[in-house]
């Protein structure tokens, strides 16, 4: 599964980890994250993420 990088702060969303702090279980793909999900580090929106090379 693809990882996505926050272009604002460098945080990496790893689907294998999910985002436990906001209740995102491991296994959730980036595209399946809720539309109002934001970067847990800096608060940037999903549009500010890019697929990791």
């Amino acid at each position, binding site marked *: 599964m693809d990882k996505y990088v926050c272009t*604002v*702060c*460098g945080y990496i969303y790893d689907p294998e980890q999910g985002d436990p702090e906001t209740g995102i279980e491991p296994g959730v793909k980036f595209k399946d994250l809720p539309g109002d999900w934001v970067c847990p*580090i*800096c608060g940037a929106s999903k549009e500010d993420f890019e697929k990791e090379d």
Partner: protein
Amino acid sequence: MKPVEIAKGIYNVGVIDWNIRDFHGYSTHLGTTYNAYLIVDEKVALVDTVKKEFSDHLIHNIARVIDPKKIDLVVSNHTELDHSGGLPRVMHRIGEDKPLYVSKMGKKNHARHFPQQWNYQPVTSGDVLELGKRSLTFLETRMLHWPDSMFSYCKEDGVLFSSDAFGQHYAGQEMFDDVVGDAIMPHAKKYFANILLLYAPLILKLVDQVVAMGLDIKTICPDHGVIWRKDPMKIIDAYVRWSKQEENRNKAIIIYDTMWHSTEEMADAIAAGVAEAGALARPMKLREWDRSDIMTEVLDAAAVVVGSPTLNNGLFPTVADILTYLKGLKPKNKIGAAFGSYGWSGEAPKLIHDALAEMQFNLIDDPLKIQYVPQEDGLEKSVELGRKIGSAILGKG
């Protein structure tokens, strides 16, 4: 302030702002400094500038060391205007085409602050800029505390230019940690609690990264306050300790506001109960204490207890203020409780309780609400809540 030589050929040419008391909502009881660093080598480099209104003072300080026109390049570690506000004046004076070294995010963010088309030279972690005998190695420190933040490290002298990290809002002619002594630590703690606490996980990662890079740090030059030259590890160790938030002191901070002293009486009774259980308590009334001083106390408190009267079916405004502030700074591992006096509807204690629950505080009881003026039984309930908080702090709850 006269330029101060930190290592041979490296000067602090920054300025003292003796009179600022409100730094974007953070109380600066002693004022602050905006430090800027001049490195005189085969190439002359200026690291960071000052707040716009001190630009002439900065140019004057530089001129006491070297003709400002001899500056070959500028490094701007952070876009925030207390460090970049002097750029227009500096670049105009030294030549608008001189290279301006910034992080990648710094390039984006400077462009959103200044209309000038400067000669930006974006750098990434590990990039090295040769100055002659010395060099600067850059280390991006994103979100510590802006996306653009970075460190510049001079390995030949072991000097780390750390931007806002390790800074303190402290105005004084004592430029170094060994001159001020331990009296500087509460200012460093306040800075951490109010500016950096929410990024604690990133700080721990950064410290690991710096250790892995094997940087030999002899001197830390932050952009505010004193320079750490005697014992730079002291402030790094403190940052690690504060970031972990595991060694809370046996104290409860009781944050409240009051209209007719009823919520205040409850706060004092809770404090008495905490003391009876053997822990410490400090009631802090919101209209008497600045939020940034309260936050400093919260940093190493085991318990945070919040009280509000119910006003117009809601929170008292100062309580809403501190809850917003607390939530944003993300304190961890706290025991929490909510209380307040009310007249007829009494929404406030539950609103506080829910806000603290959202912050993942360990709430030890239901919100305590008392109608109008607490009588003997109401005060006893408050003392009892304090006892429970005290016992929980001491691990007996």
